[in-house]
């Protein structure tokens, strides 16, 4: 028996209850279909979490072509997150942490050089209650933490059952995450927070103008809309 496979057909994709026809080609990747659906529905929030699901609950394999995945003309597919995002707690920042951070960054940087501090807390709590100012070299364009200090720091953290919860560093002008910031955070674990303060942290102790980001599971950084997404400030 000959089976005719349509090379170009349409699927029905459902997002937030709304159904839209999306054209596909048998040879194209499922990821292309997902991208087209994301664009059609105008999804802007966490689109990287979205996958397509069949009506039998199985997920459509994104590593395959439309044909390999067995998608059929007019098949109804649900576009939804592959992991319903969790709601664990935000880090609570103790009252003295932010003023102390600005004080250290201002005193060390003198409005002329970049500087860095690390926010620490007990491994058993969701609170930041310590600020560590490392030994480092500095310039208007960067800093480098001394490796011996880092070794001692890790030992100290282990013995006191504390961990680094976030790093905070300064930039001369605009706050952003440079490629070296992306590559060399002090902690490379998913969920780790990085904060970049503009203007060498001169001015009032606030995170309003800061760049705040978090490491995702795949190692990429995601900039957040505001610090309040991950931090509870006093």
């Amino acid at each position, binding site marked *: 028996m000959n089976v005719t496979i349509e090379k170009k057909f349409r699927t029905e994709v459902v997002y937030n209850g709304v159904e839209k026809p999306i054209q596909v080609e048998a040879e194209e990747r499922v990821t292309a279909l997902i991208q087209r659906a994301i664009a059609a529905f105008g999804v802007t929030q966490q689109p990287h979490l979205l996958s397509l699901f069949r009506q039998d609950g*199985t997920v459509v394999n994104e590593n395959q072509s439309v044909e390999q995945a067995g998608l059929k003309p007019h098949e109804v597919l649900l576009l939804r997150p592959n992991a319903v995002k*969790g709601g*664990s707690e935000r880090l609570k920042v103790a009252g003295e942490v932010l003023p102390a951070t600005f004080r250290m960054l201002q005193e060390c940087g003198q409005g002329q050089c970049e500087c860095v501090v690390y926010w620490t807390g007990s491994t058993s709590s969701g609170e930041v209650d310590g600020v560590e100012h490392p030994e480092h070299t500095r310039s208007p364009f960067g800093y480098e933490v001394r490796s011996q200090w880092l070794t001692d720091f890790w030992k100290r953290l282990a013995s006191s059952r504390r961990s680094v919860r976030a790093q905070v560093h300064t930039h001369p002008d605009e706050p952003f995450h440079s490629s070296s910031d992306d590559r060399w955070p002090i902690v490379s674990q998913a969920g780790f927070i990085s904060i970049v303060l503009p203007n060498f942290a001169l001015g009032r102790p606030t995170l309003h103008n800061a760049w705040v980001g978090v490491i995702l599971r795949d190692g990429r950084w995601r900039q957040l809309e505001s610090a309040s997404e991950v931090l509870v400030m006093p």
Partner: protein
Amino acid sequence: MNGLQNLDRTILLCRDYVPDGVTNYRICERLQTRQTLCIADRRNISTHAGQTALVTLVSLLSRMGMQVALDIPEVNLVSAQPPLQGSSLGAALVGANEAFVASATINTRTDFRPDIIFALGDTPIEDYRAPCWRLTGDEWSGRIEMDGLGEPPAWTAEFPMGSMASAALAATEAFKAALRGLPLRSLACQPFLRESRSASWDFGLSSIPMAGFDLGEVDFVSAGAISQAALYALVRIPKIQIRARIFEHDVTEASNLNRNMLTLREDIGHAKVRVVARRCPELIAGTIPARYGNGDVELEKLAPRVVVGVDDIPSRWQVQRRQPAWLVVGGTSHFNVSSSIHSLGEACSGCLHPIDEPGPNVIPTVSFVSFWAGLITATRLLMEATGKPHSLRKQHLWLSPLRMDLPRAAMWSPVPPRRDCPVKCLASRSLTETDPIAA
């Protein structure tokens, strides 16, 4: 702005459709300046279901920061309506003025022009020159319809599940109307916010008896929004029997008020378990003010029926690994509800949610979405207790409350077992042995 903190999560959710150039302040102001009018005559609020519809609607509107005016006669409460207090309906509602969310007023003034009107059942209304939806329904189904579309029946039912569904449907229309007045990210956002001229939800349980529910021992893991919405629904079921324990370590924060249905502003800073126990003491047999999985193993032995209301994926896995006989998991994701049930031997919650994606921990939420999650959870529990649980074909529900008028608003599906199930449940292990090519 007063109330900005309380509406923090709702404003965050609005960002799905409202561009970054619109300030949080402006979104907050838009919500807080919506004038809603709720109208009911004596007949329509003389039953428990009618009263529950009104109380639930007012709570959901108020938790979005909206202003609520009531045009209702004075009637006594048929049954308690926690977290409200008082013996008469009007006094209880007005007593909650600014109690749900700061600056969200509830009063009986009607000398203003409403932006939107909600009328219960067949209550006659004057010509207010504002869009009006009617809330109707029966024991197990709820409906909204724009005024003039049909012949609305009066509320005559006592059993309240359908009335809470109609309230959730109505609150959604108020929210969408508010957002339609703000700039949107793109034209693609418009279909999600289009008004639903009529919408309905039927739990499909008319064959289930509406009295004598005995749920036995039930453990709730979390006293957050979904558990509170489920308990809010259960405490309104006449003569229900349940011995519930609640595990929760957290305290109430200002940002919880937008969705925690048993919580008032006065509860900020108080342990969530205490708040819940105070509001529905007849349901709660024990409170454990600790995170599940971190404490006493003996204490953490689970009841035969477990409700998990935490969005945190690893916490769901942890409960599932303890192999409860029956588990219902309720969650929200932006404007969607995820509800699943897992009996021993079936594909588990790890099969459904095999991935945890670390990221920002502030979850965007809004009152009516969280409420739907709790309402569905409560229904699943009632069905299980009566020996008529959903079939495997309906093991998972993906609900999109924004457009309940559309045929794809509710997407039911089985939960297929996965070889890479992080819980390594029985169903996933059997799969590995028998089907080497399965997902």
